[in-house]
């Protein structure tokens, strides 16, 4: 009996040790996902959440930008997703808000589209599986004015959401998809090759620039 208990104890201890080592390895791998992108922002600062995923903050063309990695495991029968959330703060106090969400399933907890109630017409030429919403009827005019920028954003199949609010503009982009094996058998959230390429992030910044410029141009035209 003593031998059985000893073997069981050794087995448990070994399993726990392997699990802890795996956990530390996965967490450590997450921490470096945005490291290569730090040079794109001036005054950049990278912080890490308890789950190991990083947040990069800094300034791009004088505007404050926050880049976050957001794991999403909220729907059943779908692999976990890793979303890249880009938020650029630029106040437009009286501007109508709008947002577009691709392939909505109702579980997008990170999305701003759920906060808007007026259904809008998406721009022509973007994917058909998209929902556009605003906070008031004239959001449609603002959306139409930005249709060129939106078409470019959503020509990338990884784009998930574009949103314009009075506080700023936001893009959600798919950074990675979880491993099927780990997810199916133990519902684990494991991403490989999830590191964000600086070139890609720079392109997303330019998408944000274009969207922001389209809003400013419309504002100027209305003022004139």
């Amino acid at each position: 009996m003593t031998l059985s208990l000893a073997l069981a104890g050794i087995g448990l201890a070994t399993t726990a040790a392997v699990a802890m080592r795996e956990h530390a390895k996965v967490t450590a791998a997450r921490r470096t996902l945005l490291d290569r992108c730090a040079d794109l922002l001036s005054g950049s600062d990278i912080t890490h959440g308890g789950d190991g995923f990083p947040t990069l903050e800094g300034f791009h063309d004088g505007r404050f930008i926050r880049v976050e990695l957001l794991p999403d495991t909220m729907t059943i029968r779908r692999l976990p997703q890793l979303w890249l959330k880009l938020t650029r703060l630029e106040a437009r106090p009286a501007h109508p808000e709008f947002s577009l969400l691709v392939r909505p399933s109702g579980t997008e907890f990170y999305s701003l589209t759920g906060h808007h109630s007026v259904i809008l017409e998406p721009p022509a030429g973007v994917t058909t599986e998209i929902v556009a919403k605003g906070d008031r009827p004239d959001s449609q005019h603002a959306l139409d004015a930005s249709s060129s920028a939106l078409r470019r954003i959503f020509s990338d199949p990884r784009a998930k959401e574009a949103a314009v609010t009075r506080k700023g503009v936001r893009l959600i982009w798919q950074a990675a998809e979880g491993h099927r094996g780990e997810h199916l058998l133990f519902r684990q959230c494991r991403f490989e090759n999830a590191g964000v390429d600086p070139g890609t992030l720079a392109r997303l910044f330019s998408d944000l620039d274009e969207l922001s410029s389209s809003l400013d141009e419309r504002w100027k035209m209305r003022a004139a």
Partner: protein
Amino acid sequence: MSQTTAVHGEKISLLRVLGPGHVWALGVGIVLVGEYMGWNFAVGKGGMIAALIACWVAGLLYTCVAMIDSEVTSTVAAAGGQYAQAKHIVGPLMAFNVGLYLVFAYTMLEAANAITLGYLVQAVGTMAGFSDVHDKPFIVLTIVFLAWLNYRGVYATLTVNLVLTAIAFIAIVILFAAVKPWSHELLNHKDMLNAGLPYGWLGVLASLHFGLWYYLGIEGTCQAAEEVRSPARSLPLGTMTGIMTLLIAATMTWYVCSGLMPWEYLGQAVTPLFDAARLTSSMPLMVLLFVGTVFSTLASANGCINDASRAWFSMGRDRYLPTWFGAVHPKNRTPYRSIVFLVPVALVFAYFAPLDQVITFSILSGLLGYTYMSFNVILFRRKWPLGTIKRGYIHPFHPLPAIVLLILCSATYFAVFLGYGTQLVAMLIFFVVASLWFHFHRYQYVRRGDQFTMQWPRPVGY
């Protein structure tokens, strides 16, 4: 592989590399726990031969399920399986019911896993000389620990269990080889054949109830539609070979257990494979099957908590339930309120109900879902005939699989009624009352415009 874009879901394929082999392996992995417990109650209903027939007939039922689900899933973009399908094809009341089927099937399976684990610890504890070991604390501990793990979400990583699940699969194969199935040294099938069908053909029908347990959940492989290289080929091939493998594995499990144990004992055993290992008197085999049972039940229970809470969460987000359940934990990014809410539900069933009844509730919930699928695919083909929308896979011989599925589901309802009529009636009353509550009260809160996220053409006849 190329960075092609799948049309459906969030499957922008970084890793669009799955072939039929992957679909097969994962499908078998999900359903593995069914080999370790539950299936043997079919033996109690109609004897050894009846259980084997039930296992094969259930294989036919799941073949229909896989064919139908492959087509609908490869077309309905929004992930979420049958729940999302019901929203788009039938309507909110059906979606509400399908959501409840999912929650109950998973929660009851979670309770069944916890009961098995508790029993196993008690049995091993008694063997090791701890005769006072009680299973109840371990049942509670299992559910609470796994709920905590799920509550922590991405903070917790336990990928080591991928290896352990593989060990659980290998353990069955080793057990089969170790009992020397080609000889009569350990196995005694003579008694089994003499017993024949103790309850006649009615017993065979009654066995169909637990025959489903061998495969419950295999249809989950159909959700891989967006990641496989060639969905039209890989999906049916992977799923069908998965079902065939399970059929062979189930037959092997049946062969070993029926050769080692009298049917009267096997028909009510909690851990049949572990008991089979005990009867071989081999300590390494016992340890292997103990580990296999522990990890297959743990992995299964963990997946169940995850899926049940997300189904409950989705219903909260869609306002089918109070929106309070649709909250996400700000740090852990998990549906924490749904996870916590379902813990006492699982505990009540695991603590107070016997294993066979808990399994019956899980099977019934699954069965209701399969019945819905037979109607669903007929409605789907009628509202959106072939050619009107893009389908990733078109199942052959329509409507034959739907009709066969419906007949087999009806037979299984009768089988459940034969042994568990009270549970069947209680569950149906529950779903009727819940549907009335939804129709007359809750539906007013549902944002109907937000339900339909597919850009499909107007259905025929509307």
